[in-house]
């Protein structure tokens, strides 16, 4: 299936950089913790959506079990800190490594499965991990990991409960990093190969592209980055349990912004998150959470029915079409 190229005019990049710069200086206005928290969550989900987009949007391997890597990251940091008194920054390094290793180990046998089967297999793997973690006492089981809070500002312990702005900046830096990485991958040969195998795997193979290796590489990158976000989550919430880090709903929260904003487009997940998260918080405040999920489900269904490729793709189609028609 032919998918239109997503290149945006370079003016867009300046505007985006401008917005990001504004966001970088915003916390200096001291706007209050609630807003910092919500914006933190915004960046968090935008980042996660970007990571998910790497494998599902660019490589076309629809992963419904991405939450497993998220949980691995969170638990690595938690276990290292609570059991071995090792700084969670070490978790930031080892979490992604474990996540990538898990992606490689599970990807190798499952990547030869076709579309639907791969999605279901990834879902099943995440569920098995979650159920396993629920009964694994060493890491807490259903009890989870309860951090001993260091109620001060501590870089070595990676806890900033007194000033959430540090979390904000860390997440912001990660988001910019992920955006940059996505952009670079998108505009590299590697990215071309991924999109080729996404669009038609058989044709890509006949061109000599080693589909398995490419898929594994992007899976490892995506999983590693997701695990890093898991570590940040652990350090923010200071409480980890399998159900809030590894369930299918976590994966859904990751993929909804990506689908809304544009699958396979660099800025898509970010735009999607910037629209979705404020709406969901506003809904939460005014009509309560159950209905908020109902509305999110309806939004999902509408997106799938009318713009399955996402908002940004429609925008791009509108921009490119006049020129193409002229050709």
């Amino acid at each position: 299936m032919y998918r239109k190229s997503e290149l945006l005019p370079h003016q867009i990049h300046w505007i985006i950089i401008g917005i990001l710069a504004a966001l970088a200086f915003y916390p200096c206005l001291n706007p209050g913790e609630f807003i910092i928290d919500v914006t933190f969550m915004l960046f968090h989900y935008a980042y996660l959506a970007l990571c998910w987009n790497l494998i599902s949007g660019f490589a076309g391997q629809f992963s419904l079990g991405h939450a497993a890597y998220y949980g691995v990251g969170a638990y690595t940091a938690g276990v290292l800190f609570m059991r071995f008194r090792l700084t969670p920054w070490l978790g930031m390094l080892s979490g992604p490594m474990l996540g990538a290793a898990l992606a490689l180990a599970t990807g190798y046998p499952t990547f030869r499965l076709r579309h639907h089967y791969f999605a279901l297999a990834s879902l099943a793997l995440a569920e098995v991990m979650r159920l396993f973690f629920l009964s694994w006492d060493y890491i807490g089981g259903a009890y989870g990991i309860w951090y001993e809070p260091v109620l001060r500002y501590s870089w070595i312990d990676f806890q900033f409960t007194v000033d959430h702005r540090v979390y904000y900046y860390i997440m912001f830096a990660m988001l910019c990093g992920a955006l940059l990485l996505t952009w670079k991958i998108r505009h590299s040969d590697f990215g071309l190969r991924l999109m080729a195998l996404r669009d038609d795997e058989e044709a890509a193979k006949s061109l000599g592209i080693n589909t398995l290796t490419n898929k594994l590489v992007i899976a490892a990158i995506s999983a590693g980055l997701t695990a890093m976000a898991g570590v940040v989550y652990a350090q923010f919430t200071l409480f980890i349990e399998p159900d809030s880090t590894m369930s299918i709903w976590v994966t859904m929260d990751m993929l909804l912004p990506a689908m809304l904003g544009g699958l396979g487009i660099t800025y898509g997940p970010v735009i999607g998150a910037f629209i979705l998260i404020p709406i969901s918080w506003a809904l939460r405040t005014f009509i309560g959470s159950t209905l908020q999920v109902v509305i999110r489900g309806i939004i999902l269904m509408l997106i799938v029915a009318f713009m399955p490729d996402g908002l940004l793709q429609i925008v791009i189609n509108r921009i490119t079409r006049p020129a193409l028609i002229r050709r």
Partner: protein
Amino acid sequence: MHEMLTQVILNGLFLGAIYSLVSIGLTLIWGTMKIINFSHGCLMMVSMYISFWLWFIIRLDPLISIFIIFPLMYGIGCLFQRFIIMPILEAERHAQLLMTFGLMLVIKNTVLYVWRADYRIVLPLYADLFFRTGEIVFDAPRVIAFTAAIALSIGLHFFMTKTSMGMAIRAVAQDSEAASAMGINVYKIYSITCGLGTAFAGVAGALISTYYPVNPEAGTVFMFMAFVIMVLGSMGNYLGAMVAGLIIGVTEGVTAFLISSSLRQAVAFIVFILTLLLKPEGLFGRLLRR
């Protein structure tokens, strides 16, 4: 100990038959339309609620309410096909998955909002009726549910093999373009299959409400099991789903008894992954595609 094991296996069969009913619906929809329906479990949950309210308000026994639920869920299935499936038949696969997932979110949370997370129980007259030999007990609700499930599956088989409508469905599942060329109205078949599949899930819901507490989360676990069974029994193969359902039901029960209760659900997922990796076409190949 051995008697307990026998009881566990027996119960696994009873439970497995219910899993099969749910799974048959799922596999029929997949067989013809190549769509995985994530909202299947939710629809079953809705029929559990219908069965409960019918019992609660007019004391209608769930087994009798099946005669209302079957056509009602059939109708809902047709609506589902018309408004949810039709727009995405030609769409990309991830779009299809997410559409049904979105529907599941909507249905489940609407039920949660309206009727809350409270547990509702149906207490039919035969709820405490059982037959015991030694340590092994056959309790009426489960035996009845098992019998009804098996009867329905056999009925389905006759329908599929002996009636022209059934053969039309199998034709569409095998090759929808060729079937269309033969003059079969493919969209009508889609509608019928969806209706049938949902009706089967509905009957499963009504049967199980006789002994299982009704709540909004009830559909989720059954649906996951149904996925596992669908793949194990070969996607599209309803007889395979029947057999695979019994296998999974027994495996789940025996694992919980002999090894550990925490592995109860995990073992089904492990079987699922192994099937996908080792024999993705399932145990029985494609019955519908012969």
